[in-house]
């Protein structure tokens, strides 16, 4: 939720220069790849030249830090760039038009998927909510969007992919969608429209037609670069701090301690992780490197993912903002349904990845 997302939009550039941009992008990707494959040897090379005892705890921690920091930042940059380009095709107003009048089910699936690619910022949550509901997007469908948008973001996906691996990143994506769709359907079935704040129910607005700004390919690539500058510029310090903590856990935390507290055999660890995660204000950037280190020390994957989802999908600041449009009862239902969904994912994961 910390990644507010001002993607600049504008009229098409006057000078085309498309060829130059394409060439620069291709060259950038080649350089990226070349650097990426050199990271491991480079890190080993540096560690071997430091006055450290090979195989010692300190050497392990330093090697982890030196290899993971550039690796994670590079992968994060790539994912954020790709997401920035993809998002240039979407806007909240376009998503609203796509979702208006959709039925429960199909609408929830579409809303959750659009939640991934629509530029969204928690400070926009209220206008977005009112905009959706008053334009005829069903309440449950709106919730599917509101759950998926902050939970499945490029920072979380990029870091999971970089640190823990593509399988877990895909699983997070899939189960995150599952929670958003199911919770939205449940809330929709309950017919809770009467639980909105009274002034919200009275608004019957007509959607404005914001003049469609036609974007060229160059504009879209530029949007990707802007996203990288904006998001990576904002979170890189957190990533490094997180990796430093992760490196300490790697080097020094006793393996069996975490396995007892956060391992698969401790059934209560999933609800505990969700309870701890809800009030925490998300910073996926700082948390995921720690998460990776916990995993390597025997914490169960489901417990850790439940924790991450609770942190990103339910955050206190967003709840405070939404309180302006939802009654307390509806907020309680929202938190309850989403927390239950996350709990289910946690247990399912611990079960599925049992080895």
């Amino acid at each position: 939720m910390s990644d507010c997302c001002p993607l600049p939009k504008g009229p098409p550039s006057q000078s085309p220069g498309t060829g130059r941009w394409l060439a620069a992008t291709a060259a950038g990707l080649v350089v990226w790849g070349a650097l990426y494959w050199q990271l491991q040897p480079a890190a080993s090379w540096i560690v071997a030249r430091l006055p450290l005892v090979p195989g010692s705890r300190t050497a392990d921690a330093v090697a982890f830090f030196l290899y993971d920091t550039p690796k994670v930042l590079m992968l994060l940059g790539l994912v954020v760039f790709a997401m920035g380009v993809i998002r240039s095709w979407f806007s909240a107003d376009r998503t609203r038009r796509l979702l208006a009048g959709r039925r429960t089910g199909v609408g929830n699936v579409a809303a959750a998927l659009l939640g991934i690619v629509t530029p969204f910022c928690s400070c926009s949550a209220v206008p977005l909510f009112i905009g959706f509901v008053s334009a005829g997007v069903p309440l449950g469908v709106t919730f599917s969007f509101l759950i998926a948008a902050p939970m499945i973001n490029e920072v979380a996906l990029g870091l999971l992919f970089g640190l823990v691996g593509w399988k877990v990143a895909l699983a997070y994506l899939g189960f995150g969608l599952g929670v958003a769709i199911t919770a939205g359907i449940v809330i929709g079935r309950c017919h809770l429209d009467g639980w909105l704040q009274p002034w919200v129910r009275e608004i019957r607005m007509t959607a404005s037609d914001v003049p469609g700004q036609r974007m060229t390919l160059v504009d879209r690539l530029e949007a990707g670069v802007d996203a990288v500058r904006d998001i990576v510029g904002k979170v890189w310090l957190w990533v490094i701090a997180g990796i430093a903590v992760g490196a300490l856990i790697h080097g020094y935390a006793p393996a069996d301690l975490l396995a007892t507290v956060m391992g698969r055999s401790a059934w209560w660890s999933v609800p505990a992780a969700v309870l701890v995660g809800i009030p925490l204000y998300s910073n996926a950037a700082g948390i995921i490197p720690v998460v990776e280190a916990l995993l390597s020390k025997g914490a169960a994957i489901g417990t850790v993912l439940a924790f991450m989802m609770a942190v990103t999908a339910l955050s206190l600041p967003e709840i405070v903002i939404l309180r302006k449009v939802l009654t307390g009862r509806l907020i309680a239902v929202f938190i309850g349904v989403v927390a239950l969904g996350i709990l289910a994912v946690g247990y399912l994961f611990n079960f599925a990845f049992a080895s």
Partner: protein
Amino acid sequence: MKDIKVLGSGCRTCVATADLIKTEADRLGIAVSIEKITDYAAIAGYGISSTPGVVVDGKVVHAGGLPKAAAVDTWLAT
């Protein structure tokens, strides 16, 4: 005198948008009155679902994200 309204809850991007419009208007020597609308019901009345929104002489020209300087110039010029 161009009448410009910036719609938004007062988040960082909304403030930056208002500042950008002021800077561009000064640079081009165009007289503007910029008003920030932070009331959610009023924002909803303009029919946008992402902020910041920009309204020039009663017409919504932008919704969501920091606009580009070139786009601001176009709104001010017409």
